[in-house]
């Protein structure tokens, strides 16, 4: 039944009165997500698209029973905002904001406790037909058997669109973020998808930099039986250059797309060569399996 977000998700929006917070609160509500509270210090009593605003996470949770937080708080203040959610022991925090200092992320990750973090610098996650906790366009998704885990934003949308057009649908799509240190990596989330009854196949969208794909490959080989289809962006990237995302950099010769593709292939994942071929490859493979 998808993972992490669904019909029981009750969302609290941090930074709800800001431009991005307000806009996406409306979009999430339109999608059918239960957005039950917002937090902007000093703005308690206001309403944003009908959602009540509180001064603090603690007050918001007490009043609304929120169990998930999505943060649009600007990078400079994001660390404290995250700590507020962790202190309130919410099980899930999604940080959309780009630009968090890496050492702040190191500190946040250390202090997570029982809170799972998705992001930062990500579009969030969506279980089509159930809940959207993020900024992705809802209409390109449809409920179905394919999960998507991605370090990207618009590339994820493109892949999802291909899957939907191919007659497949998605169980849960998670943008894990483009930063060098993130709350949940591929290896954190793959086991959840392996256990999820709705998910029959997994699409993994990686990119240059770091070792997330190599680590995912090791886990896929050892413990993931569902078919994995992977695309890794950045074959054309020069070394030592940051390609947009803070984490997309080939450093010290490591983290190239070719290495990642080789590791995933060796682990038994199907590596899709062209970004335009993701939907077709998955559709073909799944229809073959079903026969």
């Amino acid at each position: 039944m998808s993972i992490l977000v669904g019909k029981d998700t009750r969302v609290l929006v941090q930074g709800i009165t800001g431009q991005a917070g307000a806009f996406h609160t409306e979009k999430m509500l339109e999608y059918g997500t239960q957005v039950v509270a917002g937090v902007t210090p000093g703005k308690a009593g206001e309403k944003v698209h009908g959602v009540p605003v509180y001064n603090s996470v603690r007050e918001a949770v007490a009043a609304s029973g929120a169990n998930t937080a999505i943060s649009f708080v600007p990078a400079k203040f994001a660390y404290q905002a995250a700590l507020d959610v962790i202190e309130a022991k919410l099980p899930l925090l999604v940080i959309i904001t780009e630009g968090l200092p890496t050492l702040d992320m190191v500190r946040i990750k250390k202090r997570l406790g029982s809170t799972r973090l998705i992001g930062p610098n990500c579009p969030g996650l969506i279980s089509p037909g159930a809940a959207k906790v993020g900024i992705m366009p809802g209409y390109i998704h449809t409920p179905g058997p394919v999960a998507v885990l991605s370090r990207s934003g618009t590339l994820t949308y493109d892949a999802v669109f291909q899957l939907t057009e191919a007659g497949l649908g998605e169980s849960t799509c998670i943008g894990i973020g483009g930063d060098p240190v993130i709350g949940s990596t591929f290896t954190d989330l793959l086991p959840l998808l392996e256990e999820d009854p709705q998910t029959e196949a997994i699409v993994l969208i990686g990119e240059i930099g770091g070792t997330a794909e190599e680590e995912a490959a090791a886990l896929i080989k050892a413990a993931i039986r569902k078919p994995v289809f992977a695309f890794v962006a950045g074959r054309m990237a020069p070394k030592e250059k940051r390609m947009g995302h803070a984490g997309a950099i080939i450093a010290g010769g490591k983290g190239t797309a070719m290495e990642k593709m080789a590791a995933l292939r060796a682990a038994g994942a199907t590596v899709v060569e062209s970004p335009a071929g993701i939907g077709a490859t998955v559709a073909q493979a799944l229809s073959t399996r079903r026969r």
Partner: protein
Amino acid sequence: MKLHEYQAKQLLAAAGVPIQRGRSAKTPEEAAQAYETVKREAGGGAGFACNIKAQLHAGGRGKAGGIQVAASAVEAAERSKALLGKRLVTKQTGPDGLPVSAVLVDERLSGGIELYLAVTIDRSKAMPAFLASRSGGVDIEEVAAKDADAIVRVPVDIDRGLDTAGEDQLLNALGLTGPAAEAGRRILRSLWTAFLATDASLIELNPLVLAPDGRVLPLDAKMTVDDNALFRHPDLAALRDESQEHPLELQAGRIGISYVGLDGTIGCLVNGAGLAMATNDIIKLCGGTPANFLDVGGGANVEQVTQAFQIILADARVKAVLVNIFGGIMRCDWIAQGLLNATQQLQVKVPIVVRLQGTNVEEGRRLLKDAHRLNLISCDELEDAARKVVELARS
């Protein structure tokens, strides 16, 4: 953000790391004065030798003639004159090289054992980590490739820092014993202080030298600080040397666009870094060569699209442009209008293949079709668009 060696050494010295006596210089006259100062501080006599080291944001300068020796103030001025203001081409700079904006005049230290010491972020563990090796003064990537065990990695708790056991492990990896080990221990602590205080992504001492007189100090220092943290380090932000950056990348950065120059003929304009990388990839797969990576970001209004085009077309090698936009919040009809306005305003002559997908895509495509622009070609599928633009770039 990269820092120059002389800036890194100043920051490290402030944190307690011993460094060679030295002064930076931006003109030959300053270099001559720097020589005299360093000579005086070192108590040197006639013929006292100093290094004249080119300062640029790339390694490999030694083999490229970027490190000279001066044994007098006159020589210091002459050697500096030959380096300053010129572009130095090293193995790491690419064929265009980088301009030498300053030189570091520092005391020569010869002999000694060359070691390697660095602090960086271990992304996999989401923790800082120290790296240490007895193979200093060489390319650490090559060391890692030949023998992974030659480099010892010690992760560090962000709050507690290195404990004694961690320090001992690193000192052992460096082969330091006795007084040298104590000197090394102080350096480890200072390095950690500097790393936290500057929100560094990397501090690399290569080589860290155990000198014949027992001193332990870095002969070179490479430092990169986290761009995302610069808002809380205005003093570090002020150290930025824009001369070391590609002018188009600089221009793009100023308006919130990510741009990286490549060496092909097909310009790219995309929204989203992953999609932009994937667009470069598919061009290559279809037999073409991308001229740039460009992420116009989530905003993508007419202003930004126009500026993005200006930047792409500033590269004279561009023969055709591929625009790949997946409209999420951003509507395709707004993008289409932005494209029409921008290309009109700039009188763009090269062919532009446009692939739009997402919100209001039909309206967007219709706008483009109705504009009847000869050099604006719409393609619905990314692969078709890539093939088309590759063909156009060839003709």
